[in-house]
């Protein structure tokens, strides 16, 4: 397996949707390729860091204001 072929299956590998046979081939490639190992690990880390950090908080005061505005208009038939 080449690095390009590995890369094409990167998402499937991370999402756990590859067939067992393909997974074995991907793991074999990883065993001998430091570059793809770094790509896989740092891509996983990229997702993890975005998942664990809320970039756009909706402050409580804004939430309440929006809720009130929406509900008031719903009650008036929009």
């Amino acid at each position, binding site marked *: 397996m080449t690095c390009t072929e590995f*890369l094409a299956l*990167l*998402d499937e590998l991370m999402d756990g949707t590859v067939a067992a046979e393909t997974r074995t081939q991907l793991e074999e490639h990883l065993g001998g390729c*430091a*570059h793809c190992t*770094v*790509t896989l*690990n*740092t*891509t996983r*880390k*990229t*997702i993890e*860091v*975005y*998942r664990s*950090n*809320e*970039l*756009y908080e*909706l402050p409580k005061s*804004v*939430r309440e204001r*929006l*809720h009130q*505005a*929406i*509900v008031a*208009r*719903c*009650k008036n038939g*929009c």
Partner: protein
Amino acid sequence: MSTIQVTGEGEQHPDVALVASAVAGDVQAFEKLIRKYDRQIFRIAQHITQNREDAEDVVQDAFLKAYEKLDQFQGNSKFYTWLVRIAVNESLMRLRKRRTGKMVSIDEDIETDEGSVPRDLADWSPNPEQNYSQTELAKILRKTIQGLPPGFRVVFVLRDVDGLSTEETAEMLGLSVPAVKSRLLRARLQLRERLSRYFRSKKAGEK
């Protein structure tokens, strides 16, 4: 597709009852749906519009539009899927207004090879985010994702941040499943490449 709403044998998605009550005039039931999804809608709107005021307007308008059309909601998809679709359209409309004359669309495929082949192959520090304060880190993450085209940002957020399936994401954005897959791979790799500038492990002597 009509079985999507059913989460198990005879088990209904909790939104179905809330939507039914809201259609019957129970505004409190609709308020429960607002509380449940407003933060996600705000996040999606903010990622697309890159503008706080616009994102707040999108939250308001998307819920109002959903309420107005609630009786047209067929229930052949999840309420949240339907709501996100409305919010994405509202967000794009606002983005277009701010960028007059510029084409803005989720389905425009960006001709770019950037990030499709990893270039920065240095490994990252074991816990790279710990080298930054919470504020600095959030700033880096925002700046990094803002560099991506809107259609890539929103696919990444729906799939990887919200944890939705490829099929749901495709339905929300009106894209094909292969289009979502291709964008997700490119978004992940481009973000990885860009974050490497901040997170790569420093060589001895490097500042």
